[in-house]
């Protein structure tokens, strides 16, 4: 993609009407400009009429600014916030199935306990672990498990909420109005 400026991780928290087709409208704005969505998580909020999408996208800031403005213009989009990583609580969940022979199993369970991960399933030759935390924590345990042989891995994609009080002023609401 011919982008200008530095390509960076951007986390968007988008409140939308909880209706069919909204995800397609939102995703379309990114796709049309050739932006790859790194991760995406959608679920209803505390108010069932609305859903919150957490979208992580790698892109330069300037073209992304235009996308966020276009997001505001979508009728079912209520609010768009960019969450600065320092000012957000980000969490992600990962399920990973690792080869675990008799002689390596204890090493893997030890690793799991260091990372406060849970063993969710055990087979003869593999175990499935659940890890939750910041994305970099998930990256770290993935690296450490790789030598044992990862069979399958699935991450949920990040969800995020703004941190409270002390960092509120850095939270960048990119205006909530469409036109």
């Amino acid at each position, binding site marked *: 993609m011919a982008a200008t400026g530095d390509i960076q991780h951007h986390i968007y928290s988008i409140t*939308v*009407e909880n209706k*069919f*087709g909204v995800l*397609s*409208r939102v995703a*379309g704005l990114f796709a*049309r400009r050739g932006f790859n969505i790194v991760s995406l998580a959608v679920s209803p909020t505390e108010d069932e009429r609305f859903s919150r999408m957490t979208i992580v996208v790698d892109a330069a800031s300037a073209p992304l*600014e*235009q996308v966020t*403005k*276009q997001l*505001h*213009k*979508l*009728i*079912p*989009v*209520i609010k768009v916030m960019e969450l600065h990583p320092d000012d957000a609580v980000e969490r992600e969940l990962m399920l990973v199935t690792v080869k675990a022979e008799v002689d390596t199993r204890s090493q893997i369970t030890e690793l799991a306990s260091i990372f406060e991960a849970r063993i969710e399933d055990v087979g003869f030759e593999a175990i499935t672990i659940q890890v939750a935390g910041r994305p970099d924590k998930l990256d770290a345990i993935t690296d450490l498990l790789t030598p044992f042989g990862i069979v399958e891995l699935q991450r949920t994609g990040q969800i995020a909420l703004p941190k409270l009080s002390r960092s509120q002023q850095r939270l960048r609401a990119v*205006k909530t*109005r*469409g*036109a």
Partner: protein
Amino acid sequence: MQLTGAQALIKSLEQEAVEVMFGLPGGAILPVYDPLIDSSIRHILVRHEQGAGHMAEGYAHATGRPGVAMVTSGPAATNIVTPLCDAYMDSIPIVVITGQVPYANIGTDAFQECDTVGITMPVTKHNWLVTDSQDIPRIVREAFHVATTGRPGPVLVDVPKDIANQTMDWYWPDSIDLPGYKPTTKGHSKQIKDAARLMSQSKRPVIYAGGGILKARAAEALKELVELTGFPVVTTLMARGAFPDDHELCLGMPGMHGNYTAVTSMQQADLLIALGSRFDDRVTGKVGAFAPEAKIIHVDIDPAELGKVRRPDVPIVGDCRRVIEELVKAVSSDKAKHEDDEAAWPSLDEWHTRLKEWQRDFPLVYEQTEGGPLKPQFCVDQLRDHTPDDTIVVSGVGQHQMWASQRWKFNHPYTFVNSGGLGTMGFAVPAAIGAKVGCPSRMVWAIDGDGCFQMTAQELVTAASERIPIKVAILNNAYLGMVRQWQELFYEERYSEVYLSPDLPDYVKWAEAMGCEGIRVDHAEEVEPAIEKANAIDDRPVVIDFRTDYREKVYPMVPAGHSNDEIILDPAHDSFGER
């Protein structure tokens, strides 16, 4: 009261005060065409669904009211994608109703099924798939609201056939609940004050008026602002008529084929006041070299336009009319407050003089020699001079469009209808029909090219059968003229697939076959009598086939991607490309 979804749809359109709709029935929309028989709404049966969409656009352009088109599913829906995109680019409020296969059959590759909502998502302001007939009044109300408020645009409502047949309890919603849609119409007062302050410092200001002025019904407000400040105005292709061409502060059209004064005034300005304009590439040329010394005040109802191309010094989100009215107040009070400040509100005499010199030295030129080939500009001039002042001019896309915009004197708003952003060839004939339906007492002339005309000419059958007496002037140079011009100038005269023939089709016979009067004009002296004859006919459409000089090119011209400083004047000018 129990109604079918179809009856509720028609009744909802009546509630929205729809007086006319353009369309063509088919399988999936059949249920909705039945109650239409009993409705007060006039339906105009088109010959191709693209025509329905452009007619709705022409109607909306000319009247300011939303145009309505109704077509069936599948191919009909895809045929109307072009008008939707056209309306999206030019912010034209139209409401398109499409039929859809029965709800349960969606996604089964049913006959005449297509994903209409998916296909039209990127070319509509919003669209709806109706899944319950009970929702129809609400959705119609929302559709008209979204189409006509904020930055106007096209919307689409897709109605599955079984939903149209399903009964519902009639109601009409008394309010609209769209929590994510609240356009800002009032400009920020501090920004307006800042704008006035910036204006007070300018020695070389230009008001860059765009189509938003017309959408916001802001022509009067603009005139007031101009007369208060003495700032000159350029009117973009979408804003022709928003400020009268006969006003001494009107500089005309800027951009790729703008006149020298309009283009150069912006290049040399120290302040641009962009009102409802969007720094389109056809206006700016190479963005980095556009108006290099100018500070920018940018007013637009769409926040996404501010900073999209050029970062404004003072951005103002709001409705153009409201913001301009506030600006008028802010300027008046700034002037009063800084009466003794010599630096504020400097004299613009020097600037006005420079502009007048350019206008004198670099006018638009062409020469119609006696007995020589018929010049297209001459035809446009003659049309302009022999039609009423409030004639609505509709054009297609290409050379004829530029000549129409350059040479006509647009002294009233809503007198020029054309396809700006999308550049849709074939726009003129159906859009002219829509404009005439909306303004039956006005004379409507389409100025079209021979290439454009061939794309949608069949709608003249619609016009003839519905007795919509539009007039069409084909500037027939037997070429895809604008493409030919680019091939001549930028591809070493290697003409690739641009020749069309002046005689094939025979436009006069074709016009007659479609129930129109056909007139052929080969020589300059026949032009005026032909126009007078056409003007006198009011019971059927008229087509004049003007056989024009294919060598004629549109000047001035800024080659695509070049700086506006590199404007190429007509070779007839002595100084070629020089300031």
